[in-house]
């Protein structure tokens, strides 16, 4: 049994905005964005269900523009057309009232050259009862804790100029741990469009084998500098931190809030091994943004360790007199890609030799943002490796080091394979962000606690 993706949500949105467009007054322009999902969630602890249910939601955001005066609002759609028509009309009336009080928006910019697109990914995701059965069977005898989410997610853009963009996919995402004891656990993720029993079994087997390594007596390391391998999941924590705080955003660069300030205001560089891009074509996020601009397949952000470009939202484009490249208002990468290196992925332990293998980092933040000095914790599977062999799991450690070391002069190499990591975040709605990251071998990483 499998769910299929239909086009009902797309047609509904199209007709709703066509109706709203017909009710516009004079030269008004309407921009509309919808984000929706119908998701089944199963939350587990100790291989039993903690919470399970379904969330069906559709959020509609409207920007109403007349000349350069601009106001915006959002409503939750019910799916019942007469109710939603009334809500849209009521919101537009309120926005017109507010618009009378505002001056021209100097940074208003929207796509006035209609470019319609459609991308629908059809999947074969299991029915919830089947997923629950299979997951609990895999967790039998283990302390399994985590979350399973599956179902349709969709994003749409429409404007009164006739542009229509649609992105829809049916996906599943199982984000789970096998816990051994206390804070020792094997973390894993199985996500995609088509559930494959054999692939899932391989992941379960990998987690089970990691538990064996975690069962050894843990090692306490004293603060100091250690040769370290950062697995792709650990790298994800680092790049997400600097991304969300404006490392690649135009506004953060112009206002000197970027963590990479020393690259643009001084002569700091990253390692020539580091090339970072926003790889929309290789990700799973929509290729359009909320003002209707279409994103290029790829935007180079850092090449060979040198700053190249930033993500520019339409508002920043107006404010700073540069062209937009279809970035969202937050100007952070939604499909970040770090170019792989040459270290054989299958032989990272040998390349590390003796040092720390860090599977995951956790709760990263800045010690000194302007210097891109970061801190955070090791988490889940972190091991001490001696001459390429696992010796013991390592109790949690706090690092405090700059990106100019970790991705700069202390970076020895990157693995030759990059892992695609789908963001399991569900704040407000299921995320469509992803990263494509290799592992990194660092000659010295500073640990402080």
């Amino acid at each position: 049994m499998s769910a299929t993706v239909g086009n009902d949500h797309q047609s509904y949105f199209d007709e709703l905005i066509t109706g709203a467009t017909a009710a516009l007054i004079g030269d008004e322009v309407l921009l509309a964005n919808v984000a929706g999902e119908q998701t089944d969630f199963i939350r587990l602890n100790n291989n039993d269900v903690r919470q399970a249910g379904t969330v069906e939601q559709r959020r509609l955001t409207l920007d109403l523009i007349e000349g350069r005066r601009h106001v915006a609002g959002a409503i939750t759609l019910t799916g019942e057309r007469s109710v939603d028509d009334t809500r849209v009309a009521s919101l537009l009336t309120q926005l017109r009232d507010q618009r009378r009080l505002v001056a021209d928006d100097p940074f208003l910019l929207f796509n006035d050259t209609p470019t319609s697109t459609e991308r629908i990914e059809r999947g074969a995701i299991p029915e919830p009862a089947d997923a629950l059965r299979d997951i609990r069977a895999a967790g039998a005898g283990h302390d399994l804790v985590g979350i399973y989410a599956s179902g349709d997610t969709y994003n749409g853009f429409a404007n009164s100029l006739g542009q229509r963009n649609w992105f829809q996919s049916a996906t599943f995402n199982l984000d789970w741990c096998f816990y051994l004891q206390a804070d020792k656990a094997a973390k894993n993720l199985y996500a995609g469009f088509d559930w494959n029993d054999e692939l899932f079994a391989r992941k379960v087997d990998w987690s089970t084998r990691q538990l064996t390594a975690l069962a050894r007596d843990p090692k306490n390391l004293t603060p100091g500098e250690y040769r370290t391998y950062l697995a792709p999941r650990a790298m994800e924590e680092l790049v997400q931190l600097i991304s969300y705080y404006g490392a690649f955003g135009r506004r953060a660069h112009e206002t000197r809030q970027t963590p990479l300030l020393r690259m643009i205001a001084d002569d700091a560089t990253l390692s020539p091994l580091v090339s970072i891009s926003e790889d929309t074509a290789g990700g799973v996020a929509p290729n359009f943004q909320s003002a209707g601009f279409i994103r290029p397949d790829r935007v180079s952000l850092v090449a060979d360790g040198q700053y190249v470009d930033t993500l520019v939202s339409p508002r920043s484009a107006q404010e700073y007199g540069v062209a937009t490249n279809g970035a969202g208002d937050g100007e952070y990468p939604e499909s970040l890609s770090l170019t792989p290196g040459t270290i054989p992925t299958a032989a990272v332990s040998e390349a590390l030799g003796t040092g720390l293998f860090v599977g995951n980092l956790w709760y990263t933040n800045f010690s000194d943002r302007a210097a891109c000095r970061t801190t955070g914790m090791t988490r889940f599977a972190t091991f001490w490796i001696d001459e390429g062999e696992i010796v013991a799991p390592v109790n949690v450690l706090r690092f405090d080091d700059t990106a100019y070391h970790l991705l700069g002069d202390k970076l020895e190499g990157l693995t030759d394979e990059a892992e695609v990591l789908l963001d399991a975040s569900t704040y407000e709605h299921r995320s469509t962000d992803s990263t494509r990251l290799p592992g990194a071998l660092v000659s010295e990483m500073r640990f402080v606690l």
Partner: protein
Amino acid sequence: MTDMLIESRTLEDRIRRALPNDVDYASARLHDERSEHLRVRRNELEPIFTDYDTGVMISIWNGGGLGYAATADLSEDGLDRAVERARHWAEMTGGAMVSVTPPTEHPTGVYRSPVEIDWDTLPLDDRLELLHQQSRLLGIDERIVDWNASLVKREVDTLLVTSGGGRIEQRFRFVYPRLEAVANEGTNTQERTYGAGSFCGQGGAEVLARHGFGDAASRIANQALELLDAPNCPSGEMDLLLAPDQMVLQIHESIGHPLELDRILGDERNYAGTSFVTADMFGSFQYGSELLNVTFDPTVPGQLASYGFDDDGTPATRQHLIENGILLRGLGGTLSQQRTGLDGVANSRASGWNRPPIDRMANLNVEPGTSTVEELIGSIEKGVYLHTNTSWSIDDSRNKFQFGCEYGQRIENGAIVGAVRNPGYRGISQTFWRNLRGVANADSFKVMGTPNCGKGELNQMVGTGHASPACLFGNVDVFGGEE
């Protein structure tokens, strides 16, 4: 659009009719939210944003299973579909749940945020002018490279009805004011804010005056500039005096989260983490020095996370969590109390209609002591006085932490001798609170909140309240930024 749904008897009747009688227990939690977002950045008004969000979560306990279904479709058909979906989940999960005990109570009650000055008495154009005034006071120097002033008004009405006639109606009114100034010179960027968003609360326009919103902009801008010329915070072990707007974060991360019973039960281990606190510690563990007294108090008028009932319908009361340094009680709602056999509090909360309730902090407050802030400063031979959180990081057991602040002041021989930039400190929760050696009196006590606390799978963001005086800690590892 502005009709309050909880006043709609038709809707309530429809919800009641939809709830089934042939199950062990059923409830419907209606959440109706309206908010207005105003922001002036660099003296330009950004587009006004108005937000409406309404929906209901149906929960059904039956045959040892529990399921929920969340929908925004409040029609008879929509509610019926949600009920059937929740019932289906209950059937699927029967025999597989961590706990199979359904609620037995059908509570009734009402809560309303105290509002002294209705927000609407401050018309929209007056609100915009207020923000323009603050913006002009922030952008006072060419080295101030970015600045903004913002106000968010949020109204949340909830209605919990149960299959046995329970009815909890709660009306929340929130105000979130913010100010921010960013100063730069070369590779040195410094930010100063209005309490990092912590000066929020329940109420109307009076919330603005509680922490001096109208008088803060000039100070914030000048301190951002002052930090450009300030030396880096010194490094080493020293005394640490934390202002209330940093205590917010210290309480939240290293007392609040570790005491959540769902973390202790392991629910959060895949995401937010576990806790160094274990069930056997309650009643005897020396969490802090004898000066440490922490209450869970959802009854504080105007604090961000005050309420009459949690989202399971449990009446909320003030409880001591830590008294004279001894850990007494955890943060867990009725279900977590059943699962652990421990005492808890009424803190089962959801971020909205589309998320099921979990254990959350509400108002978690450090009770005032007896010293004045001046006496605490006077007792410090070598130390720093840190204000306003800017960075937070803690391990998944809530033990090894590192926090950063916007603004620091160096203290030598009992006196403040100058500002320092990029101040930070790190420690271990288990020992940090035992080094609490001074708690200021009510004169410095501030009632604040954290608007965005993330936790849970599904992920949820809720507001939590924190109140504290300034507190003094001994022997703390303090550091500054890069040279």
